């Protein structure tokens, strides 16, 4: 491999006083004094959050406003700091989506424990839990920062994805009954 050998010449007399170097440094800092500032004045100006940012995890609904989570508890198991607590509940037999069978009765995420790893989003078979772009979260007590199901839905909103897995399942089941 070709390499260049640097010649180390001894410092000249002027260089050994360090004064020229100090003057150079002063010139650079003086120049900096008038440059454009790079500070983002935070609470007034917010940074642009890139796509795929991992902020707080929330639950999302489908475009028809229905709950997507089926309370399979995979996220609860995968969550490294055990921030998620789910109490599964039954969907009553009369309900229009009774064939989904289960939905969470309670769904708590402790935002103080959460490490924003995104494993819950990755593991969820229903695409029901998503990390949002909210990065600043605060409160006056620990309890306040354990987000309940309603709060999670409120922060999550709707996922605009026209893929209705449970509709297809129902249709498939009905067709099977006809043929079967």
């Amino acid at each position, binding site marked *: 491999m070709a390499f260049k050998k640097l010649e180390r010449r001894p410092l000249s007399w002027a260089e050994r006083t360090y004064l020229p170097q100090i003057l150079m*440094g*002063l010139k650079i800092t003086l120049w900096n004094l008038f440059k454009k*500032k790079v500070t983002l004045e935070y609470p007034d100006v917010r940074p642009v959050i890139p796509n795929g940012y991992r902020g707080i995890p929330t639950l999302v609904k489908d475009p028809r406003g229905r709950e997507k989570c089926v309370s399979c508890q995979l996220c609860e198991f995968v969550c490294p700091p055990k921030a998620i607590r789910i109490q599964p509940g039954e969907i009553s037999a009369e309900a229009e989506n009774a064939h989904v069978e289960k939905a969470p009765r309670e769904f708590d995420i402790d935002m103080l424990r959460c490490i924003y790893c995104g494993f819950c989003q990755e593991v969820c078979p229903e695409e029901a839990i998503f990390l949002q772009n909210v990065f600043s979260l605060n409160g006056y007590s620990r309890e306040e920062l354990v987000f309940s199901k309603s709060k999670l839905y409120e922060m999550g909103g709707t996922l605009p994805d026209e893929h209705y897995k449970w509709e297809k399942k129902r249709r498939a089941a009905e067709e099977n009954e006809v043929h079967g």
Partner: protein
Amino acid sequence: MTYLPVLVAFVKALIMISVVMGMAAYAVLAERKIAGWIQGRHGPNRTLLPLLGHIPILGRILTRIGIFQPVADGLKFIFKEDPVPGHVNLLYYFLAPCVAFIPAMTTMVVLPFGEMDGAPLVLANIDIGMLFILAVSSLGVYGIILAGWAANSKYPFLGGIRASAQMISYELAMGLSILPAFLWANAPGTETGLSLFNVVQSQDTVWLVFWQPLSALIFLVALFAETNRLPFDMPEAETELVSGYHTEYGSMKFGLFFVGEYTHIVIGSGVLVILYFGGWNFLPGFASPWPEGWLGGVFSTLWFLGKVLTVVFFFIWIRWTLPRFRYDQVMRLGWTVLLPLALANLILNAILIALFENWIV
């Protein structure tokens, strides 16, 4: 009516103190602002006083340049909790901030800041002004050493030791670097002595910095060391000693150290301007255009203040440019470079003066 002179002196002193304290407070602001600008930040720009800050355009400008910040800083110092660590020596612990602060405030007494009809504007025009400043300002280091000792913990202790070593090493070079200035100012037939006022008057045509650049440089370096400013801030050295001698101090006691330090800088800049940069003399080669009477006093004072502020800016500018020296480098620079250089400079000037007087005049 025998009280009148006392009262006048009292009022004058009060004005002087407020001006110097104000300058120290705003030097802190300048430090933060300039640090910000040099690093591509804005510096403090949000503190807002009600009413003043709400004047339409002016208020916004004042807020943006942080004019109200020193008020907030001062209030914070006063109202902060002031814990006293259990392991300190109480007497010295409380004494140290005062000892650090009082000399800093005392030196301003002999500092002339302008002239009116050939008489100095100064609180006390004593003819050993320079000696007084050297003597009193180095007392300030006792505050630092006491603080380091009283705090009874290792970082302040190290800070105190460093402060004393540094003070001893640079005091010598500083004293020796001043002598040539006074030697030249004391031309035969003049009554300059060690008076600061007369040194300024002797510079009405040529500033001493052009005549004695080496002395000025040595004095400047020693001044940086004496005021514990970067690159010589050994006693504080945040990265090595937490915050050095005042690690165990909080709230207003820390505030006293802090203000004392900046007062030292302001006064030190004043001395530098007086000794080498012509004081209130206009520009080198020009006669001062100050009119007679009190107007002249005002102009010369303002001109002097302008120069002092420039030097204060230079102090801050250096701080955000140079890295800190290592402790042994500081000692080496002081003893093996500055001291011999100052000595040689003194001897050279003495010989020059002797030649000048015997052969040319």
